[in-house]
């Protein structure tokens, strides 16, 4: 039997590094030395070392977030996850937060005894190497995170960042695949998995930028629902450990350690680290798991993701205060001749791990059989704090869980980069209408309909506000689903992401506010947030400095905007021969709307209704779509005014509840000019006329007024009979009536009396939709 003892005791530093490299452990020298010390009396087996490597990987343990950060001025911050993100949640102390940062997904209260679970993951490395399989298993994995808290998956989200599709082949270093290849594969992979599972993909975003050529970014999210009382986590001594779902194979070995490796030419060889998707297996698994939930048969559950069986078994035992014995001979395999360590750490997909009280075992196996899911008792929870693994009757791994889950802390240095001020030198264009059309057809702004329609967003019959709105296929700010038959309450799903703002603090602040703004625009409130960081190597002090600034903003704005974080994830070490990934933070917002019949949509409703802009426009164009279009970098990044933002959001919710607001769109990428045009896209036969001089603004250059990306702003159509009440609500807040809904014109913009531009609807639609 192929189990090897690894001699650490006599290894010098070079040998230690060589062992780590050779075995693909990706463990640092410091930690190898620590292991050498720990195993001074006996050599560890390969199974043990592999388990340690998985458990201590950045992916599984979040070493950087949980470690120490030392700043240039000597501040030491311990555990930035706790210090910033979790602290905001703790201080906000919402009674509707049921489980946060603990389990596989965050859980918040919903209606009629039900709770909503939410989780967002990244799957960047696998998608770079094997786009279809990488993205598909990203979806599969996050669905299992929801099943792993007993949730029924009801909606999916995906946010994708690619290199430019027209990149020259000559510009690609070896090992980096063409963005078009990656794009096609990733989109197909996401669609395929969600469609096959019958879970609607309702929300997302797509970006294209050079900063993603070497490092594609793939975020996959899942929302689920569960009866509160069925959220069971009560694993006891003597419970059986049941492994169910797909068989274990050689795919996805070293996925988590690979997740922190730079993507170079050799990464090609790493296709084997990417799991192979099979959604049909997960579909059956879902059915079985939900039946087991409803019959209350299991005492605990977790998914198999990073680190495979080794992490699932270890974590479940550890968090239950128990130990576990696992017999690898009981694991159903799909590939021949697997060695014990391969079985133990394989990340083959579509597997779940359950703890089952003896008296329910028979019934559970019966359900698995009825649903055609393979399941096997692979072990038992025991009163010890060790994980013991058997193969062919021999102990091949015997580790103390306390040791395993308390790796030596990592310390990172942070250098906060100064953003140098750059003066913008840009002539004012003559034809602003032209600029609006150009922006509308810009790849990051224009419609993603051709992708969205390849995702089923209607399956389950619960999608109220779809990702593309109405027959005109206009943009939606957020998607709304109605999960319960007997409740009108809806879940509102939105996202915020601003990777182009070069200041990490304000980038994060804007992303948080945008997620909330998008949610509010359709009528969402009581918003919970998820943070997902995609960053370059944190051992680089500037990368770490940027990360620190971003998490600081997370605390500040979560707190100020009264929206707690409930879950998240970080993916660091996104490096390629083209350098680090563009630092990217995705904020997902999960809100509720008490009655889905009250949703507000972006399409214009009635001629002559007044159009208002809420919020203050400043000269904040750095990183804006407009300046990027012009190839200019400079000026100020948008800053979020906490107090103003909070007031505006609260008032807008009030105005929506009083039914004053007939249509609404948040102002973000491309500024007010693009937002107004997008409302026209969503509408048949009506358009907008407005006066730039009426926009509350700190700049008077018309192109800046139209294209600045200042935060906290909305465009709103108000019921003509209720405008007095509306104005009353917003008194004290910068806002103004800037125009009205008109017939037969797309967009007419004037400056006091003189006309600036006039665009007809079909040109606007053609620019944004491509037809």
């Amino acid at each position, binding site marked *: 039997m192929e189990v090897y003892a690894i001699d650490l005791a006599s290894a010098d530093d070079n040998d230690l590094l060589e062992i780590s490299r050779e075995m693909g452990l990706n463990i640092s020298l410091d930690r190898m030395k620590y292991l050498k010390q720990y195993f001074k009396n006996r050599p560890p087996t390969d199974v043990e070392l592999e388990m340690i490597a998985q458990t201590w990987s950045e992916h599984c343990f979040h070493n950087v977030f949980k470690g120490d950060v030392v700043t240039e001025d000597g501040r030491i911050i311990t555990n930035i996850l706790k210090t910033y993100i979790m602290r905001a949640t703790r201080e906000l102390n919402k009674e509707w937060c049921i489980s946060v940062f603990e389990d596989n997904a965050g859980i918040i209260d919903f209606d009629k005894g039900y709770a909503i679970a939410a989780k967002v993951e990244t799957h960047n490395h696998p998608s770079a190497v094997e786009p279809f399989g990488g993205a598909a298993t990203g979806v599969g994995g996050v669905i299992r995170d929801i099943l792993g808290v007993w949730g029924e998956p009801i909606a999916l989200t995906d946010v994708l960042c690619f290199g430019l599709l027209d990149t020259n082949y000559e510009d690609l270093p070896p090992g980096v695949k063409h963005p078009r290849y990656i794009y*096609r594969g990733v989109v197909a992979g996401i669609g395929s998995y969600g469609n096959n599972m019958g879970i609607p993909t309702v929300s997302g975003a797509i970006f294209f930028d050079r900063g993603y050529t070497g490092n594609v970014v793939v975020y996959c999210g899942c929302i689920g629902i569960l009866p509160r009382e069925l959220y069971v986590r009560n694993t006891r001594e003597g419970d059986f450990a049941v492994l169910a779902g797909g068989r274990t194979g050689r795919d996805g070995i070293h996925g988590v350690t690979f997740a922190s490796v730079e993507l170079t030419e050799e990464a090609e060889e790493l296709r084997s680290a990417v799991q192979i998707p099979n959604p049909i297996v997960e579909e059956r698994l879902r059915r079985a798991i939900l039946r087991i939930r409803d019959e209350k048969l299991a005492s605990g559950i977790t998914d198999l993701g990073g680190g495979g069986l080794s992490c699932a078994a270890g974590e479940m035992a550890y968090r239950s205060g128990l130990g576990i014995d696992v017999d690898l001979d009981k694991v159903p395999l799909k590939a021949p001749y697997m060695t014990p360590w391969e079985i133990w750490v394989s990340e083959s997909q579509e597997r779940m791990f359950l703890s089952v009280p003896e008296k329910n075992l028979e019934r559970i196996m019966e359900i698995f059989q009825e649903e055609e899911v393979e399941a096997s008792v692979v072990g038992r929870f025991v009163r010890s704090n060790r994980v013991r693994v058997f193969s062919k009757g021999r102990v091949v791994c015997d580790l103390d869980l306390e040791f395993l889950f308390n790796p030596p802390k990592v310390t990172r240095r942070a250098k906060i980069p100064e953003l140098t001020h750059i003066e913008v030198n840009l002539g004012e264009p003559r034809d602003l209408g032209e600029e609006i059309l150009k922006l509308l057809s810009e790849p990051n702004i224009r419609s993603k309909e051709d992708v969205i329609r390849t995702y089923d967003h209607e399956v389950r019959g619960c999608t109220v506000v779809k990702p593309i709105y109405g027959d005109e296929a206009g943009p939606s700010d957020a998607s709304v689903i109605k999960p319960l038959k007997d409740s009108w309450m809806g879940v509102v799903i939105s996202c915020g992401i601003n990777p182009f703002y070069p200041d990490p603090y304000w980038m994060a602040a804007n992303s948080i506010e945008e997620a909330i703004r998008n949610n509010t625009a359709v009528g969402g409130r009581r918003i919970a947030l998820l943070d997902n960081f995609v960053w370059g190597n944190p051992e680089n002090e500037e990368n770490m400095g940027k990360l620190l600034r971003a998490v600081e903003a997370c605390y500040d704005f979560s707190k100020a905007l009264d929206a707690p974080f409930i879950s998240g994830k970080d993916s660091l070490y996104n490096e390629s021969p083209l350098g680090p990934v563009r630092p990217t933070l995705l904020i997902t917002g999960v809100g509720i709307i008490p009655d889905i019949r009250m949703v507000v949509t972006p399409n214009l409703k009635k001629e002559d209704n007044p159009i208002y802009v809420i919020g203050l426009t400043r000269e904040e164009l750095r990183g804006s779509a407009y300046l990027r279009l012009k190839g200019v970098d400079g000026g100020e990044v948008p800053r979020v005014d906490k107090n103003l933002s909070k007031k505006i959001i609260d008032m807008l919710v009030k105005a929506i509840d009083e039914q004053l607001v007939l249509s609404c769109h948040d102002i973000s990428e491309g500024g007010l000019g693009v937002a107004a045009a997008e409302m026209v896209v969503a509408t048949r036969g009506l358009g907008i006329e407005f006066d730039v001089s009426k926009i509350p603004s700190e700049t008077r250059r018309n192109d800046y007024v139209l294209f600045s990306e200042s935060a906290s702003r909305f465009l709103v159509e108000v019921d003509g009979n209720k405008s007095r009440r509306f104005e009353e609500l917003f008194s004290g807040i910068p806002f103004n009536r800037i125009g009205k809904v008109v017939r037969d014109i797309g967009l007419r913009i004037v400056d006091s009396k003189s006309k600036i531009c006039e665009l007809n609807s079909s040109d606007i639609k053609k620019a944004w939709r491509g037809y």
Partner: protein
Amino acid sequence: MRMKVEVRLKPGHFDPEGDVTAKSLRDLGFPVSTVKVGKVYILEVEVSDRKEALKLAEDMCKKLLANPVKDDYSIEVLSP
């Protein structure tokens, strides 16, 4: 008897899977103009007569492996 059945779209039917594969190969830099995709089934059939086996395979194609409206198929005996 071991048999091999190949099922492919009839000529003239477009083959989206083939098209997507061709595009992906081109994106990877391969000089590929078209790709057609089909399925191969390697079947262990429990009869010893070659003729009977061929007939059976033919029948399997008609009843399950191919849809005559859109698919062509070919059958081959691999080994007795």
